[in-house]
């Protein structure tokens, strides 16, 4: 009789038992501990392996003379110089100049890009007027604007701010237009049912639909903004981080050059993180694969 009984409840199917395991971890076999002594020692610090390896390689390359130390500083000298430049306020001047340009240019460009994209996305007439021009200008590499902008505005603030704006705007136009056009007809109908104005429809349905795409593109636009700004400062400027690294190269100060690169990298990461945080907040309603 007992043979006919179903399996006892505590004997679970192996797949069921592992249901709570993290998706990307490899399930270990029964009773087998696969972690090595090395893994246990390094714990959660696996991510440091690659950067430490790179810095070590860099240091050895300079110290062994494989790369001439008159042209490239080793990491220790570079970090020391970074502290010196921070302490004497030299770097602050350039950081402020660059940040001002990038924030101004990015904000202006984003607004212009979102507005143009929204017009193209919401209005047929607007799309007919603006879209052909936009689609022609968007593929033009933004760096190609530098000579013209220098001719028009000189090497002052204006040329850099406008350049960064162009890069940001062209990046955001298509994302905004596509996001607005991708809004659900069902939800637009809800707005119509409650007799919402065109502006309310835009504010409550069309724009929120476009936000995830706008945020993703804004991060691309911010990365492009740094590229454009550094390029413009290298070519035509009297201050800013791009000018600083190029000037350091010209006057054979390899440690300053690399210290400047470090600051640019850190600021790039900072602005991207800020945008990612903003995006996470604006799309906190979203429950998709990646969130």
């Amino acid at each position, binding site marked *: 009789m007992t043979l006919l009984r179903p399996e006892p409840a505590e004997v679970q199917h192996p797949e069921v038992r592992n249901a709570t395991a993290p998706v990307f971890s490899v399930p270990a076999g029964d009773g087998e501990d696969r972690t090595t002594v090395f893994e246990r020692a390094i714990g959660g610090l696996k991510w440091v392996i690659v950067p430490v390896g790179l810095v070590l390689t860099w240091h050895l390359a300079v110290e062994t003379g494989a790369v001439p130390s008159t042209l490239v500083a080793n990491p220790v000298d570079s970090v020391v110089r970074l502290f010196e430049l921070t302490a004497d306020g030299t770097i602050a001047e350039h950081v402020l100049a660059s940040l001002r340009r990038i924030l101004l240019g990015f904000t202006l460009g984003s607004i212009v890009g979102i507005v143009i994209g929204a017009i193209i996305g919401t209005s047929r007439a607007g799309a007919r007027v603006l879209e052909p021009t936009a689609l022609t200008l968007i593929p033009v590499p933004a760096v190609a604007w530098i000579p013209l902008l220098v001719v028009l505005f000189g090497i002052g603030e204006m040329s850099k701010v406008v350049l960064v704006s162009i890069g940001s705007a062209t990046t955001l136009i298509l994302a905004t237009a596509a996001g607005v056009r991708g809004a659900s007809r069902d939800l637009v109908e809800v707005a119509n049912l409650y007799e919402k104005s065109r502006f309310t429809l835009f504010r409550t349905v069309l724009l929120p639909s476009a*936000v995830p795409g706008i945020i993703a593109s804004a991060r691309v636009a911010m990365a492009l903004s740094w590229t454009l700004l550094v390029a413009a400062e290298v070519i035509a400027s009297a201050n800013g981080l791009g000018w600083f690294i190029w000037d350091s190269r010209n006057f054979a100060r390899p440690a300053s050059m690399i210290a400047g690169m470090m600051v640019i990298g850190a600021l790039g990461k900072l602005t991207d993180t800020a945008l990612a945080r903003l995006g996470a907040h604006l799309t906190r309603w979203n429950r998709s694969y990646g969130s």
Partner: protein
Amino acid sequence: MAPELRSNATVPALAIRIHSKQVVVDRKPFGVLGAIDLDVQHREIVAVVGTSGAGKTSLLRAVAGLDMAYDGEIRSFDSVITGPARERGLVFQEHRLMPWMTVANNVAYSLPSSDSRATMRDKVRGALELVGLDGFENAWPNQLSGGMSQRASLARALATAPEILLLDEPLGALDSLLRSQMQAELERLVLDQRLTAMLVTHDVDEAIVLADRVIVMAGPPGRVVAQIPVELARPRRPVDPGVQSLRSEILEHLHGQPVGARQSVAIGSDRTTVNLAAPSGAENDE
């Protein structure tokens, strides 16, 4: 809203006089609705059943004022319907909540912007209490289950205190257990709020359990083939003998012929076989 009309029971809540509705499909005219002459009395609950393509949803959208492209006229309490209005609340088959708005803001979405913040808050709270969603004001739609989402959607339609509630298969996407539970809640709500209701459904049992009158449509082009009053005591259950005999009658009209013996047996034991009459039951008609 016109309170003097509430008491006027002689004027029908809805007077539908549609001659036809045509759309162009594949460059040829296609009749979605034929001639439809239908009155819905004040505080009456009517259910519209019919096979896919019978024009049920088209009819409801016309009544809601979302689709005005038809020949004819629909009056609500003697005023011609020319577009959507807050005195006619509509619940779609899908919940259609804005995913980026909290439950409270979604419910408030139906209210006119002329309402003060305090008024809006009161109306939203009242509507959420009606559907049993109080306490979920700040939840995101994505955090709600299917039944809760449909409740929130119902709350949005009720927040405006409509005279007429239009329901387009509002329970169609729910599982059968939840569905019968929500049917009971819907019945209580419509009766308590003294609403006039027009319910489109694929589920013949749902129609009989909830409605004072079942309208059977066939098409295309959509037309009314039968109107069956339901004079059974409430609350009704699908297993009641009275409900079962009405079901057979309605299914005969749906098939356009007497129901075969095989189908009667199946239908008697399992409500889901109603889908025999509506093969593509899960999708929208039009």
